[in-house]
């Protein structure tokens, strides 16, 4: 199922299910540690890593400030090179653009490189409905396509699937292969997928890839992969379609190179991904290979609405996944619980912007603001700050439950009146201390069920500090 009907509004239930899913929990526990170590080692090995983060942030800020100009320049170059650009305001327009190209090419099957925009568009289900078979060629994407699942991580789509499950899936789906074959190691799984996919590559009429960058100066699109599947996807079929959201644009090749130095290091801890592929237009007369047609579908889907708002900074994102790899909430529940295409901290800020705060209101709230995402984001996106903006927007719209809003209002009213607050707190605090008695903590507490469902509540010591300070006659004013 590639169509993403959001289930973000059920986030607490999704999370509970994820926490109870033992297989998922096993996978999460081992995977997150590896990502973190590799990223920190890669960053430490490059002395200019922090400077590159500043430069990359500035490149994107500059680009976003002039995005219309750069996109127009990009389009012009693509056309000069014999390609086509299709502007899509939303997912439906983007799907239609792809279908029209596929129909014109008489396509029956399309191969696909990894693309989150394709997920955002719900492209696979749409193509199937229209009699065109999409074949994912990234190993992770291929696995979850066979399993009828959605990606749970933006760079490791099958993050949630254990090796044993992949073996099971391959045995079930690859019925034309010898049932007694040995597949135990990751390597063997890769080989088997390669073998099966090879035929699909040759049969495909259209190849669809995503894009990590669009380069205005040259009209090129750039993808990075570790499997080389992207290259086959875009060079073998007659038609190559690139799916990209608008903010992938950068002015120059030089700019792309700067940001590329951060991308793989932040994502997997590699210096570069194994393959970085630049595509510029269809094949020219003298070229030995390459597609005959080159199309770029440029998806907006609400992004231009963010420009000029406090949420603009999210558009610097290069989808490296570092924020989710370091997020303790993602680490506890995995990606599916977020209920839409983008999980983790980037999802928490992007999803409400793209599918609405009503649908995705939980996501920016489901953070402790531990700040680790911002600390590792190569593009220095202040993710917690953006989540807080979204919380403010929700608060203005009255989305938080009434109990929370009233509780907060009552508390804030008191907190603004220190004398009254001091008096008002003395009694309940003493009472709690008394009730806890010699135990010093509570196992259960009315109105604090969320707390005591998971842990005991330590009791207050007794009098408040302020009361004790008064009794002591402690100093209240600065001495002259």
């Amino acid at each position, binding site marked *: 199922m590639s169509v993403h009907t959001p289930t973000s509004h059920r986030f*607490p239930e999704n*999370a509970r299910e994820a*926490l109870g899913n033992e297989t998922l929990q096993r996978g999460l526990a081992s995977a997150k540690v590896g990502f973190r170590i590799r990223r920190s080692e890669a960053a430490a090995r490059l002395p200019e890593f922090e400077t590159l983060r500043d430069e990359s942030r500035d490149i994107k800020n500059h680009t976003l400030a002039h995005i219309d100009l750069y996109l127009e320049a990009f389009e012009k170059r693509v056309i000069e090179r014999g390609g086509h650009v299709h502007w899509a305001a939303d997912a439906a327009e983007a799907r239609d653009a792809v279908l029209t190209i596929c129909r014109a090419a008489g396509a029956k099957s399309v191969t696909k490189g990894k693309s989150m925009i394709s997920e955002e568009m719900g492209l696979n289900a749409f193509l199937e409905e229209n009699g065109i078979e999409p074949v994912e060629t990234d190993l992770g994407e291929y696995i979850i396509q066979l399993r009828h699942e959605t990606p749970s991580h933006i760079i490791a789509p099958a993050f949630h699937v254990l090796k044993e499950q992949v073996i099971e899936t391959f045995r079930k789906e690859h019925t034309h292969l010898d049932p007694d074959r040995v597949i135990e190691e990751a390597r063997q799984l890769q080989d088997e997928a390669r073998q099966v996919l090879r035929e699909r590559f040759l049969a495909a009429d259209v190849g669809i890839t995503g894009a990590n960058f669009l380069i205005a100066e040259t009209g090129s699109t750039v993808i990075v992969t570790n499997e080389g599947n992207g290259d086959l996807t875009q060079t073998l079929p007659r038609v190559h379609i690139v799916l990209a959201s608008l903010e992938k644009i950068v002015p120059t090749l030089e700019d792309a190179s700067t940001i590329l130095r951060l991308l793989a290091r932040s994502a997997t801890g590699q210096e570069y991904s194994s393959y970085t592929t630049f595509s510029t237009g269809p094949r020219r007369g003298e070229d030995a290979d390459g597609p005959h047609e080159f199309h770029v579908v440029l998806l907006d889907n609400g992004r231009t609405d963010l420009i000029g708002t406090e949420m603009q900074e999210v558009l610097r994102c290069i989808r490296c996944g570092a924020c989710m790899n370091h997020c*303790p909430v993602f680490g506890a*529940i995995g990606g599916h619980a977020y209920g839409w295409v983008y999980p983790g901290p980037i999802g928490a800020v992007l999803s409400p912007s793209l599918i609405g705060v009503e649908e995705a209101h939980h996501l920016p*709230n*489901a*953070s*402790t*603001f*531990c*700040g*680790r995402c911002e*600390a590792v984001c190569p593009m220095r996106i202040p993710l917690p700050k953006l989540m*807080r903006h*979204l*919380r*403010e927007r*929700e*608060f*203005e719209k009255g989305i*938080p439950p009434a109990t*929370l809003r009233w509780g*907060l209002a009552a*508390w*804030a009213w*008191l*907190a*603004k009146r*220190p004398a009254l*607050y001091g008096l008002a*707190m003395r009694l309940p*605090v003493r009472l709690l201390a008394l009730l*806890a*008695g*010699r135990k*010093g*903590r509570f*196992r259960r507490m009315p109105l*604090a069920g*969320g*707390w005591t469902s*998971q*842990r*005991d509540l*330590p*009791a*207050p*010591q*007794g009098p*408040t*500090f*302020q009361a*004790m*300070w008064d009794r002591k006659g402690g*100093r*209240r*004013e*600065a*001495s002259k």
Partner: protein
Amino acid sequence: MADAKPNVALFVTCLVDLFRPSVGFAAVKLLEQAGCEVAVPRGQTCCGQPAYNSGDRADATDIARRTIPALQPFDYVVAPSGSCAGMIRKHWPALFENDREMSRLAISVAEKTWELTSFLTDVRGMTSVDAAYDGVAAYHHSCSGLRELGVREQPRKLLESVRGLTVKDLAHPEECCGFGGTFAVKYPDISGRMVSDKAEDIEATGADTLLAGDLGCLMNMAGKLKRRGSAIRVRHVAELLAGDTGAPAIGEGES
């Protein structure tokens, strides 16, 4: 000002005020040992994070607006919490972007606000304390202090001078404990998993004591450790540094 005793306002924090005054007194003692004149200005209740982090910017702004004058007259403001000090230092100025006069005041208060252990070492140059504690402690870096204020080595450095104390590192020292203020109550299952993982990490060190610099995180971790039946004693780092370990540990009774 260098030789005169600096005037320090103790920003007690709402949790210390209500739940654990002994941390406040330990902080006063340490500040006095560091040669400061300490006062506890009346006009304070809370730094406003419960409102600010719930999207209620108006109330957070109001609370800051009313607290700033109380802190303004002092040379320094010190809080036994990285989270509350971080709120004052990093976020109060942002609340008054459209109000020049208040913004100026907020910035001046922000610039003189410090987390306790960082103030003692970075500002007052304290390198050791006169305290003893017989035990092995695991230290948890609270997130706001660590990432907003860079409080990492300061408490450790002071703890090294506590006689009889051994400090152990956690396997995942940068991992959040799952407190997150209202997060712990709004998403109890997720928070519960995070604090379970933290508790396992703490237990695996073999420590008999857990220390940290933020009462919110401490109450969360103590609550979980107690729920798991652990005997590990949980204390605010200031209590140990001040040698004030007479009161029962967090979540423990008189017995």
